[in-house]
């Protein structure tokens, strides 16, 4: 055992031992009480896409709804044209890459981390209550693509929107796989109000977040 490991295990014993003694001596241990407000049973209720849309816009992001994956490319073209962007779109997800490829969009799966203007990733789920996107990290969805670009485009399947955050956790538990390294719950672009309480978008992460719902 190295000194550091020895020190660590000693401190662990000290801290936990101290807490155990306190809780037992003072008789503080109590059973857990049930929360007053367990999330109302919303499973049967339909997702209100208008509410979701409003939350997205309230969070300073933009949203458009398309009828089929075939329409994504046109939507992206319009978005880039409006923003006057000609840089290639960084896409890693092979499925997304194939879907977009061939529609005359400038896309790349070999981007330079130092110079990345636009990225496109797929959301795993989304939350109606807050307009949040749930991004799960995996080899096809590297976390940095959600944070490095100036413009972040997210593709979302309408059927994967749930009412609240606890339904995301439920899905995660039921998938029985080990947790991904990162789950990002993203609500609008990056922002700061550190200077004179003025809200400024694009602090370190994306300046603009565009959601395309299929």
């Amino acid at each position, binding site marked *: 055992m190295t000194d550091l490991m020895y020190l660590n295990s000693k401190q662990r014993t000290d801290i936990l031992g101290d807490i155990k003694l306190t*809780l037992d001596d003072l008789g503080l241990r109590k059973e857990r009480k049930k929360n007053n407000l367990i999330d109302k049973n919303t499973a049967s209720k339909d997702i209100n896409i208008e509410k979701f849309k409003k939350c997205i816009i309230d969070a300073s992001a933009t949203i458009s709804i398309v009828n089929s994956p075939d329409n994504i490319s046109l939507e992206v073209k319009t978005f880039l044209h409006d923003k006057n962007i000609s840089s290639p779109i960084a896409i890693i997800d092979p499925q997304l890459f194939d879907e977009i490829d061939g529609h005359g969009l400038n896309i790349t799966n070999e981007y330079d981390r130092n110079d990345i203007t636009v990225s496109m990733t797929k959301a795993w789920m989304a939350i109606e209550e807050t307009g949040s996107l749930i991004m799960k990290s995996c080899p096809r969805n590297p976390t940095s693509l959600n944070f490095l670009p100036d413009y972040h485009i997210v593709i979302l399947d309408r059927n994967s929107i749930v009412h609240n955050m606890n339904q995301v956790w439920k899905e995660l538990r039921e998938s029985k796989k080990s947790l991904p390294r990162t789950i990002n719950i993203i609500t609008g*672009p990056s922002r700061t109000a550190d200077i004179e309480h003025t809200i400024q978008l694009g*602090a370190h992460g994306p300046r603009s977040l565009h959601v395309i719902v299929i």
Partner: protein
Amino acid sequence: MPNTNTEFKYKAREALKDEQLQQALVGVKQGLVNNRLDAIKVVPEFESFRNDAAAVKQHVLENLDLYLEEFEENAISSGAIVHWAKTAEDARQIILDICKQNNAKNIIKGKSMVSEEIRLNEALKNNGLDVVETDLGEYIVQLADEPPSHIIMPCIHKTLSQITQLFRKNHTDIHKADKNYSVADIVNEAREVMRRKFLSADIGIIGANFLIAETGSIVLVTNEGNGDLCSCLPKTQIITTSIEKVLPTLDDASLLLKVLARSATGQQITSYNTLLTGPKQDNDKDGPEEMHIVLVDNGRSKMLKTELREMLRCIRCGACLNHCPVYGSVGGHAYNSVYPGPMGSILSPAIEGLEKYYDLPNACTLNGRCESVCPVKIPLTKILRHLRNEQFKKRLNNKSTRFSLKLWSFFATRPKLYHRFNSLFINALNIYINILNRCSAIPVFSSWLKSRDFAPSQQKTFQQIWQSRKEND
């Protein structure tokens, strides 16, 4: 930064004269307070959320060892390395060792109050490491070589022109001296400078808002996205956090997030809420190869034994600062402590000693506004009163304060004597005021009367008026 807190009164007086600071504090008193009100108006069940949040945090404290063990076990099986630090010194040593093992030179940091508490930046700098705060507010106070003045808005005391000057001095390669900088320009310049740092750092150090026992994950709440860049780019990740931050389940985290964002910035949810579990997985394109979680005790297990226990429910939202009339008048730096405001007036003496932070429990009017907004319903005034009692028991007050308190308690515990003395006092006061014809020159009360006038006397005491009314009825 030395932290000898005998200077609150002096610093408070200076702060009251500081016009720029007073201007900045208006934003706290109006902006943040109103943001919170707007955010909870649309959530009728907010009060129930507060009750539930308080209950969850209290339950954790009552079973803290069990949840910490569960958290540790799950964190280790996700591949993270868990360190335990009894003191601030232990925590610094652990982190320095990790830096050394990784031959690190450049370190980027996300916002972490625990890292402020253990004075990590100073230790890293003294060991030749280049450390940069990446939260914009933290970065600005780092450039100014000042501590944060608010726990969620570190540079709340700085104006745009002060920040522009700091940037001019420090970003000589890109700053345009002749340009009139707007908030957007400053944010963009910081983004440009910081991007290079993000991409070249060896280690990313971040804090954690919650630790999840069920999964061994940490939850990180930000708006800027800097914490996320710190956690996905460098090849080593260190999380500085403290033992009371553990929560049983992910569902508990959703509940706490609901009260945290609304109480802190008045948002329904912040831009980024991130669940981090273990290091980079097979074939992942980014993420750290090592994830170190440093669990800091630094006096918390001791607090659990005392009447200060409920303070460990704190989720660091800053609402008590924003609603505190004392904080709102003097700002964070007057407290001369890592944690300012009501929560700091309890935490700092608890962590570093009542002797060192003698003034803080007394820098309070016991108006209770803080606890009426606390998302986890900490009885802040009760605990502050307890600390004042402790000061008296430990004989920390000066002689004249002790004498006055003793005198007061002598009368206050003898009602008959108290009433008799009180009517005598009122009569004497009336005669005195009539002679002088003004109220501001009453001896003993002179400092109290500096900023306000004495209400004209009713000639009788409350008890006398009450008695005569009862008789008339």
